[in-house]
């Protein structure tokens, strides 16, 4: 190849396509895997791919949310739910009698998305992407939005106590 210059490689495009392979490949694995446990693992790959999109969009905090909450916590919860409800390594068909209903719904959703994406005139801003969004978010959260920030902790507290109240078996003394 004449005049090959490594700095000319469009790194952003390469990362974008690799992440697209992760996202769509993972999603495909979720729906085609015969093993429900493997499907959940493919879901983590798909979530990870979406993290890359957020990084490319300069949304550092959202990338972190995607990685920690979706690829971390939600995926773990799904894996737990599978292990609670069935033998994890059982190979069974993922289709049941309602497969045609979900096919119909998935097709309808697909049509709606295609129509919306085609119909909306997506505006493109000339402004440069905001630098260091995490710092700005930190200034906002610990500055003007300090009270909502602390209320988040209260909300998480309520969620924790609520979950334990619902899930815990009653002790003999309470019955």
């Amino acid at each position, binding site marked *: 190849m004449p005049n090959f210059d490594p700095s000319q490689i469009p*790194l*952003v495009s390469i*990362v974008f396509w690799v992440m697209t392979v992760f996202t769509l490949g993972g999603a495909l694995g979720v729906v085609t895997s015969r093993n429900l446990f493997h499907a959940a693992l493919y879901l983590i790959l798909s979530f990870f791919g979406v993290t890359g999109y957020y*990084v*490319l969009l*300069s949304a*550092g*905090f959202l990338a*972190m*949310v995607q990685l*920690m*909450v979706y690829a*971390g*916590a*939600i995926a*773990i*919860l799904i894996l*737990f739910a599978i*292990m*609670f*409800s*069935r*033998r*994890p*390594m059982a190979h069974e068909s993922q289709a049941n009698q309602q497969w045609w209903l979900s096919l119909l719904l998935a097709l309808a959703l697909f049509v709606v998305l295609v129509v919306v994406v085609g119909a909306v005139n997506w505006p493109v801003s000339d402004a440069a*992407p905001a*630098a260091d969004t*995490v*710092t700005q*978010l*930190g*200034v906002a*959260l*610990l500055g003007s939005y*300090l009270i909502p*920030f*602390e209320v*988040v*902790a*209260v909300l*998480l*507290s309520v*969620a*924790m*106590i609520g*979950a*334990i109240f619902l*899930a*815990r*078996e009653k*002790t003999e003394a309470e019955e």
Partner: protein
Amino acid sequence: MPSDYVPILIYLLVATFIAAFALVLPHYLGPRRPNPAKSDTIESGKLSYGDARRRVPVQYYIVAMVFILFDIEVLFFYPWAVLFWDLKWYGLVQIAIFAFLLVESYIYIWKKGAFKWK
């Protein structure tokens, strides 16, 4: 800026390479002379019993719930950690209040016996 993440990209590539390397290389280089004792499950010298692939007690759900809540809490530490040096004591006090609000409910559910294994 996405270019700030290039070190993470390099880190991911190196980590993936090392993981693949450590799995593939022994597979081709290592000698394999299996016998029943070698093929058996090993867990710190204890003899294995039963099937590991069975249903997990639903009680473990509490651990999963608490994990998710603390996961979200750590997420809110992120913008604070970026500003750590600029905020000085003010930031430390605010995040301490934030953490305390969760830790006290953690202590509450602990005292309630949520983590007692039956």
